[in-house]
């Protein structure tokens, strides 16, 4: 993992999110207020625009700059949560050397744990954490085991999709949708959908490499 890797991922994700923007917006209008997709799009644009300022920076510095950009430029729950993600990733120890797969897993796990803490949400509450926490748990398994990387990535793609779909039948207890009671049932959580798309894009770009 390097700053350039992060930027190129952000560019890939931007394309996928734009392609699915209408769907995510519609999901949010069903159970939220419709701001999620704009926040995600704004954040991705800001990160992509950072390229020239950070492309030659060491990873930790680059991550911190991304974190501050995301934190100050997005707003809403997404800004706080994604900002926390990058800020905590940057705090993973020993980022100076080569970042191998295991180290990258450790960084992502650290970031997701911090999001969980900040949002005080766990699995089953119909939020993006329903996708992110199981993915983090799988990464933890992969990091310490001997699973083939391609196999592991395919499993993560599957987990993210299953968990995203599972939010459909949940009652929301956290976030904007929690105010709806029973009426939130039957709709996929927009944050879970955008998170799943992000994970799907990253994993697919790494498959067979």
């Amino acid at each position, binding site marked *: 993992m390097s700053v350039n890797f992060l930027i190129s991922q952000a560019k890939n994700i931007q394309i996928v999110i734009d392609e699915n923007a209408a769907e995510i917006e519609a999901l949010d209008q069903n159970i939220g207020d419709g701001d999620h997709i704009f926040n995600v799009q704004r954040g991705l644009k800001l990160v992509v625009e950072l390229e020239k300022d950070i492309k030659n920076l060491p990873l930790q510095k680059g991550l911190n700059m991304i974190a501050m950009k995301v934190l100050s430029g997005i707003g809403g729950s997404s800004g706080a949560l994604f900002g926390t993600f990058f800020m905590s990733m940057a705090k993973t120890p020993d980022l100076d050397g080569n970042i191998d797969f295991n180290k990258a897993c450790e960084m992502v796990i650290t970031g997701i744990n911090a999001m969980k803490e900040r*949002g005080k949400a766990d699995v089953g509450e119909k939020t993006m954490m329903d996708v992110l926490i199981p993915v983090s748990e799988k990464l933890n398994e992969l990091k310490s085991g001997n699973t083939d990387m391609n196999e592991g990535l395919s499993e993560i793609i599957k987990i993210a999709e299953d968990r995203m779909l599972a939010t459909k039948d949940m009652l929301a207890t956290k976030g904007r949708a929690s105010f709806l009671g029973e009426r939130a049932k039957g709709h996929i959580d927009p944050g879970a959908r955008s998170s799943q798309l992000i994970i799907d894009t990253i994993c697919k770009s790494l498959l067979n490499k």
Partner: protein
Amino acid sequence: MKKFINNVDDFLKESLNGFGKAHSDIIKVNFEPNFISRKTKTKEGKVSLISGGGSGHEPMHGGFVGHGMLDAACPGFVFSAPTPDQMQAAAEHVDSGAGVLFIVKNYSGDIMNFQMGAEMYSGKNDSIITNDDVAVEDSTFTTGRRGVAATVLVEKIVGSLAENRGSLEECKKLGEKVNKNSGTMGVAFTSCTVPAAGKPTFDIGNDEMEFGVGIHGEPGRKREKIQPSKTIVNNMLEAILDDLKPQKNDKTLLFINGMGGTPLTELYLVYDDACEILKSKGIEITRSLVGNYCTSLEMQGASITLLKCDEEILKNWDAPVHTAAMRWGM
């Protein structure tokens, strides 16, 4: 979408520019990070009150910056919580050393961003969270009730105490008391359109209303056929009274808040209905507020807030205030 817009991306900036120019006698708009502060410096020994939230609820919160109310307000994008650097910059700008009290509406995005802002600010600070919306069930396991129109009352009443040199602790205590003694219920007849979205947040039939709507056009508890005002107001008040349980002869403040698209003519009609219903239950209305204070862009609808008042609350409500949206006694 029909709105006064030049370019969607400049919407907030241009609106804030206008706000700054229109009220240059009492406030100043600061950009990057965005916050609205009083024109004058906070007097020594006075606790600073800072609130904020997504834009689109004007005059909340920028319209409440000034003598007797807030020291600063942090506006986010339309319906999106402001960012931690805004709160940090606002706190550094206004704190005179007596500390900062953040007033936050109970929405996940606001809570998280204000929390991070408070962590980033090195000075003494504390927060109160408003959650007056009785449409949503309260529970410690969930996000809980929304913070809506009673936030206006909290900001006015605590603002007066802060002006009179109440300590950070006393201000927080009074704010929590006002919040606890308030209940709000909202109804919407139409949706609102977020400029970036360009289309209405929700579909609603010509003869329908959303009972228990939030201040972002997020759905309420049920969709119903529209009824005569008396019936709607009665249902709204019932939900509030069930929750607040005022005693006979309790003194109250009755606040009819417009959502942005309903004319004052109708809001006063709602006030009349509410007065009659409360009178029949022996509840005394000692103070009133009617107008568009906590809006949802151009949504048609209204919320009713009832605040149980004691002497301390009444004294601080009556105290002088001079802001863009509220002015009396000076």
